[in-house]
């Protein structure tokens, strides 16, 4: 045969999206391309020619597909072209750095009666990641030619075409190692094959059609239903009895992929992945991980107090107090109610709240670092395992974890739970997750009450809330919301160095949100509290607030809260948790910030009562915004009332128990 008479060959280029298939096509065809649409479709069709010595290679760039299962228009086009046009060879381009994901398409291609060549692209990327792929080993294991490529650098493309030509010229020699079907489904496949024999519309291969029917391919099923209605009735019955066949067939392909990868890929033994694995052995261990989590929480509080306390003192003594003094001078000539409102109400309330901005900044910065290095995902995982072990619903951990930021998105996040009982349970539990506003209040009051033991007390309060949440979850789950559980799978990020910009943005957004709240809700509330504390006669001890506080006195006394002002401060947290600080600042008549307030509070309460106050603060009814979302998400006043009632009862019992127990040990 002369060189000029060698027949042209047709090569179909297949592959998943973003594996460099188009780069291969463009490199080979250059300007000899024709671009149009696939007949009757809006998807682009690209074909071209590659001339090499005496051979014309007609290339067809198939749409990017993950499989040949007709899940999308692209997959239907690709498989119909291969089956109907019967190219001489199919070249499947795969990403060498992600073979596990790419070989599924190869496994499907090998089931068709056409020669296949594998183009192992992105070898440079794989090498850069420390992944070593052995093309010759893969070729021997697959039983099909494998050509290493770096298509972007025009490396290996000649060899790829050489391999395609070889198998195109000698298709009979092509004998790949195809994925096997499990023995239990083999007789079913044979039965289906026998039923449709001679009735499959050409050019569809009968054995491939039988396999696709067993996989549950709807398009092939429709084709057989139309072409062979009588056979279809029997086939359909068989398929109904073996609905799980897909799992076995696809599972067999994944086992096959696993074997190929184990044979041909050498992964790095050192580096980031191994470091992550080593760290995760501790961070995700059921017990060690939990201990680490508790230790990290303790460290977060210790670091926050150590760094923030001097800043709070400076802000108090250097900004808020001079501001109050300056306001006193400026407002000396104004009516007493106006200077009282501004100095005692707004500066004493909202100003005091502002002094704990450094606490929040440091708290958010530490949380941001933990998130950015990749630890918080492990914390969520450990918490969920722990909660699940205690009988809670597996799916609930995501919304519950959101609650550490704010209870509002936590309640809204329960939308991911389809089961109403599970949703209700999670909604009832969400307010027990200590949000940043509650934590900020504790961060401010704990040093005032407990001095150097503040970090330990704060840690104990957070741990107590989580234990209470678990306990309540177990009780409600077993008594009221008994139901099926479900699985959750997380793909953890690798540990990495924190990014300062990312953390800065996180701190900035949270600080901004806090300042907005301080400048709006808390200012208005401070003014309101001040007005109620001076009406009707100007004496705080005979004011409207005092009346309300004394009315609650019997409840407060059970927890050692003998001063009515503490009960009013607790109630004020219903509007926003930070209002507790503002209310205390106003009611204790201080515009001198934490030092003054701390001294007065410490003198008012015994340690047992102070601890009970903090426990109630941590377990009290959620803020009004959370309540509104609970109503919205449950669409029920009844469940909203249940949530409020349950938390009121819990906080009361927790407060009384804490006070009594602390009292017993001599606090």
């Amino acid at each position, binding site marked *: 045969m002369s060189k000029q008479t060698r027949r042209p060959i047709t090569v179909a280029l297949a592959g998943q999206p973003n594996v460099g298939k188009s780069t291969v096509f463009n490199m080979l065809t250059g300007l000899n391309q024709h671009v149009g649409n696939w007949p009757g479709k809006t998807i682009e069709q690209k074909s071209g020619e590659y001339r090499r010595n005496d051979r014309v290679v007609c290339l067809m760039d198939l749409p990017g597909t993950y499989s040949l299962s007709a*899940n999308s228009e692209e997959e239907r086009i690709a498989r119909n072209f291969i089956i109907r046009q019967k190219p001489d060879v199919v070249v499947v381009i795969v990403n060498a750095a*992600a073979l*596990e*994901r790419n070989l*599924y398409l190869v496994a499907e291609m090998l089931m068709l009666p056409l020669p296949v060549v594998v183009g192992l692209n992105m070898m440079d990327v794989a090498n850069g990641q420390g992944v070593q792929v052995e093309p010759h080993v893969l070729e021997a294991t697959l039983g099909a030619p494998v050509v290493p490529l770096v298509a972007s650098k025009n490396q290996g493309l000649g060899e790829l075409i050489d391999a395609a030509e070889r198998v195109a010229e000698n298709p009979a020699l092509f004998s790949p190692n195809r994925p096997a079907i499990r023995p239990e489904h083999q007789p079913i496949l044979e039965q289906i094959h026998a039923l449709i024999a001679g009735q499959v519309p050409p050019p569809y291969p009968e054995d491939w059609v039988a396999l696709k029917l067993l996989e549950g391919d709807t398009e092939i099923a429709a084709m057989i239903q139309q072409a062979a209605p009588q056979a279809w009735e029997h086939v359909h019955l068989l398929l109904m009895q073996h*609905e*799980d066949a*897909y*799992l*076995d067939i*696809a*599972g*067999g392909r*994944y*086992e096959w*992929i*696993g074997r190929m*990868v184990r044979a041909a890929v050498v992964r790095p033994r050192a580096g980031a992945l191994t470091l992550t*694995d080593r760290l995760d052995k501790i961070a995700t261990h059921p017990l060690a991980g939990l201990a680490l989590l508790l230790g990290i929480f303790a460290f977060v509080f210790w670091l926050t107090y150590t760094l923030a306390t001097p800043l709070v003192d400076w802000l108090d003594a250097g900004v808020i107090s001079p501001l109050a003094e300056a306001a006193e001078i400026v407002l000396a000539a104004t009516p007493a109610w106006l200077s009282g409102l501004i100095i005692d109400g707004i500066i004493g309330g909202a100003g005091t709240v502002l002094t704990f901005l450094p606490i929040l900044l440091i708290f958010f910065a530490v949380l941001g670092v933990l*998130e*950015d290095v990749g630890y*918080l*995902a492990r914390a*969520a*995982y450990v918490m*969920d*395992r722990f909660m*699940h*072990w205690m009988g809670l619903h*597996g*799916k609930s*951990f*995501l*919304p519950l*974890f*959101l609650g550490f*930021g704010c209870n509002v*998105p936590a309640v*809204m*996040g*329960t*939308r*991911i739970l389809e089961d109403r009982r599970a949703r209700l349970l999670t909604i009832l539990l969400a307010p027990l997750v200590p949000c940043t506003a509650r934590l900020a209040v504790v961060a401010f009051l704990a040093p005032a009450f407990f001095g150097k033991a503040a970090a330990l007390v704060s840690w104990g309060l957070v741990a107590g809330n989580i234990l209470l949440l678990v306990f309540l979850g177990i009780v409600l789950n077993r008594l009221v919301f008994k139901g*099926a*559980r*479900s*699985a*959750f*799978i*997380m*793909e*953890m*990020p690798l540990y*990495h160095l924190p*990014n300062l910009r*990312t953390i800065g*943005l*996180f701190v900035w*957004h*949270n600080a901004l949100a806090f300042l907005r709240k301080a400048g709006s809700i808390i200012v208005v509330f401070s003014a309101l509290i001040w007005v109620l504390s001076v009406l009707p006669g100007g004496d705080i001890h005979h004011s409207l607030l005092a009346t309300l506080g004394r009315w609650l006195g019997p409840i407060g006394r059970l927890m050692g809260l003998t001063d009515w002002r503490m009960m009013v401060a607790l109630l004020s947290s219903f509007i926003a948790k930070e209002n507790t600080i503002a209310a205390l600042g106003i009611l204790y008549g201080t515009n001198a910030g934490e030092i003054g307030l701390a001294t007065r509070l410490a003198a008012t309460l015994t340690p047992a009562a102070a601890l009970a106050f903090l426990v109630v603060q941590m377990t009290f009814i959620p803020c009004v915004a959370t309540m509104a979302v609970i109503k919205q998400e449950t669409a029920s006043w009844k469940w909203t009332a249940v949530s409020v009632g349950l938390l009121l009862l819990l906080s009361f019992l927790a407060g009384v128990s804490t006070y009594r127990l602390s009292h017993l040990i001599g606090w």
Partner: protein
Amino acid sequence: MLAKLLEILRQNQGTQRVEDLAAALGSSPALVAAMLDDLVEKGYLKQVAQTCAGQQCDSCPLGGFCAPLEFERPLARKIWMEEKPVK
């Protein structure tokens, strides 16, 4: 292998790591992640969170969890959950 993966999910309720599933199957995390995506395609699992940022978070009930505010790195790369009962 897919049936075995679903069986493991059914037996070990609650949150599991891809790495744990890979160890249980004697496979690699990358292959398990591919299988999980396949199970999503077939309706056995649902993907509930993955890398997202910006306005996508506004309408997502999990917004702020995987990419709080303008975080560039997600809390977890992907999270799947069971969509339909495992037979």
